């Protein structure tokens, strides 16, 4: 065997080992990598954070809350990666009135504490960031808004995040959820536009925005709050898209919903459908849990 062949074989072996290690990597690291990529790109290209004090505060409150509450609840401090993901997500998503910092502190605490306060059969039901944003939009609509336009409406940045995002959700095993939701969004909102006699383009435009990127890559696919089973996950994704379409339909017709529903219909669709689906899923799995064998969803982002 020649030296070159031996080298090639060794390289292949190293690559295989790296891939093997990659496949064993906690998916949260991949998700953390993606949210960090979004954060860095958004800040350095578009100055999107709006002040590093927000980032520091949000991360500090999320990680401190996670450490304290996990120690209190479980007797040990858990991995803080999910708190990191929540902290970055909240920094990107919360847009406060007048540069106020308190929404980042309260939002961070609400996100993390929701995982410990709102539980069913030892599982939290809401994606923490989704819960915090929804709660703030309902509790403080005059002081908090959500990311509405960022990333410069720029195609290149959009594409980079979509490509990385799709690769990572595929690696985490939840690509089907993202794709199902996007397809459902396009179909249902096209139908809605047709039913209302409105142009289709504005109705499908939101899916190209950064708020939806964060939604489809970090919230709706959160491995800890999705239901078990690929088929059921697909059904829930469709139901979330359907709920969002109904919220939008209500907004189209001026029904008296809180402003947050119109401003962030996807978030409220997930906040309503997601926990119900998870609750039903946990109830369904009870017989199995009796033997301590609740099927775990892959990994866990938050």
């Amino acid at each position, binding site marked *: 065997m020649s030296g070159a062949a031996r080298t090639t074989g060794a390289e292949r072996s190293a690559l295989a080992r790296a891939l093997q290690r990659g496949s064993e990597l906690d998916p949260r690291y991949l998700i953390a990598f993606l949210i960090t990529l979004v954060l860095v790109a958004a800040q350095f290209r578009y100055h999107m954070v709006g002040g590093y004090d927000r980032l520091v505060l949000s991360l500090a409150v999320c990680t401190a809350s996670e450490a304290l509450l996990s120690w209190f609840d479980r007797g040990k401090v858990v991995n803080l990666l999910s708190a990191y993901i929540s902290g970055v997500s909240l920094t990107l998503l919360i847009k406060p009135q007048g540069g106020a910092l308190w929404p980042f502190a309260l939002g961070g605490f609400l996100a993390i504490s929701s995982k410990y306060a709102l539980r069913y059969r030892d599982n939290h039901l809401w994606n923490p960031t989704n819960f915090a944003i929804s709660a703030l939009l309902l509790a403080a609509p005059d002081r908090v808004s959500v990311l509405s336009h960022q990333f410069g*409406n720029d195609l290149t940045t959009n594409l980079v995040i979509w490509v990385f995002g799709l690769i990572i959700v595929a690696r985490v095993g939840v690509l089907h959820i993202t794709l199902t939701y996007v397809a459902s969004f396009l179909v249902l909102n096209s139908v809605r536009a047709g039913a209302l006699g409105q142009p289709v383009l504005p109705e499908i435009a939101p899916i*190209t925005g950064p708020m939806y990127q964060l939604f489809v890559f970090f919230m709706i696919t959160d491995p800890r709050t999705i239901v078990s089973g690929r088929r059921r996950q697909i059904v829930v994704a469709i139901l979330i898209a359907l709920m969002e379409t109904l919220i939008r339909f209500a907004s189209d017709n001026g029904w008296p919903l809180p402003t947050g529903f119109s401003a962030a219909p996807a978030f409220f669709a997930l906040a309503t459908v997601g926990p119900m689906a998870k609750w039903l899923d946990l109830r369904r799995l009870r017989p199995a849990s009796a033997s301590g064998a609740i099927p775990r969803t892959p990994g866990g982002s938050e």
Partner: protein
Amino acid sequence: MLHRPAPAVRQTIIAVPFLAAILLAMRLDRGPMRRVADAAHPGFVLRDETAAAGIDFVHHRPTFDPKIASIEPHVAALGASVSVADFDGDGWPDLYFTNSRFGEPNALYRNRGNGTFEEIAASVGLADLNRPADGASMGAVWGDFDNDGDEDLLVYRYGYLALFKNLDGHSFEEVTFKAGLRRWMNSNGAIWLDYDRDGLLDLYVTAYFRDVDLWHLATTKIMHNSFEFATNGGKNLLFRNLGGTRPGGTRFEDVTDRMGVGSTRWTLAAASADFNGDGWPDVYLANDYGPEELYLNDNGRRFVLTTAGLESESKSGMSVTLGDAFNRGRLDAFVTNISERGYLFQNNNLRLNQMPEASRFRNVAEGEIADAGWAWGAQFGDFNNDGANELFVANGFISADREKSYWYSMSKIAGANARFFEDAATWPPFGNASLSGYERSRVYFNRGVAGWADVARKVGVTDEYDGRAVALADLSNRGAVDVIVANQNQPAMLYRAYPDTTNHWIAFTLVGTRSNRSAIGAEVVLEAGNLTQRRIVDGGSGFASQNDRRLHFGLGAREWVDRIVIHWPSGTRQVLPRPPIDRFVTILEPER
């Protein structure tokens, strides 16, 4: 060993701070826990005396090519402006309002000096300026470009610029062609400044839409290419005044590219002052769909775009006004932006000028001053004569059906890829919806480090018109700063100020000799005991507006002024000790 409570108990314990956090958010939604300022006694009132003054101007919005009819309310939402000047030299400030619909006249209200005005635009040739061949007026600025002692007028339009020479204080002659200014621009702002300090007023005109004909569109792809970093607007132009000794009179030369100030960032307003103290006037731009821009003047040779801390916040700059916010002897910048509760908080900027020592501005807007709604024109003025500037901010974009809001529709495309909104035809149809309509003006009472408090209702400002331009002027020469507001598609308003009579004041009329005769760009620093305050003679300020040329300072209880220092545009520094107070003081620039 520490006994751990049961899981249900632990969950209940955690639920307590969890619920408390939600309740705290609800409480904070109602406002700060502690009021930052006691605004119980602002020390002035503003009374609506529009009708009594005989001002009956109503703005009419333009109509455009039917191809963009579905969003015409949005595209046609600008054009109400007001500019102040004593055009006839009788010592009383007059008012010029622009209209924007073809066939609707602009208005010149001559101040009779008895509290009333007469409308005379048609008789002096300044009324019929909204014509299909020329475009629709968007605003105007006064300035004595030929230094003959009469205030001339530039009208900017969605269409051709129009320059009018004031012949004798009683009539005007259009000299646009002769001056070389017959340029089509979709402009919402212009300022006079003497950027090269040659004693002649130059002209900086901002552009919004690129130079398409909005009445005959070849394409509907005319909108911005980003809600945050758009660069496909019209090109701002700088015209250098070549002087009046040439045949045919004064001519202007387009020096935009040579001077490096041709921003294409959808500029809505510009202001000029010597921000860094190097003696040369700089240019500050408020850009819609993008960050603000500061062009520093390099000795009159060129302008250098500098970051100055402005690039980090991309917003929707609607106007920029300059004033000494905290009596530091500096001109700070207040830039208005858009806020709509539940949807968007872009927040206004109060940028403290730290250019001389740190080469940057620092945004200190927080609390009430940061959110005035969809804010437009704003001006600093000492309404109570206490020696500190208040702020008047006009608000509201489109008031139509109160029950329908376009914000939800806007939210669909605002975050989307640019392809979804660069074409006007792909926007959701506007219909009869409102967009941040029926918002009231704000009057921010200045409590220094204690913050700014909105006292609009308390002082009598309650209208809900779609305010655009705000101009300040002492219309009755009585030591009070009155407020004139031009409202979009609605009647103009005159609020007369009634400050506490115990406070003193002083006002200056500057007359340039080596500098331009209008003294535009002259900065006055007043020192009275512990009070130091700077003001500038503006050649356009706020949004589509221009203030009284005379500089008004409130003095509070101070019964004398130690001295004033005047920084003339020519570079001359003049010191005037102990000027008399409670009156207007005319100051002629020294020849040497």
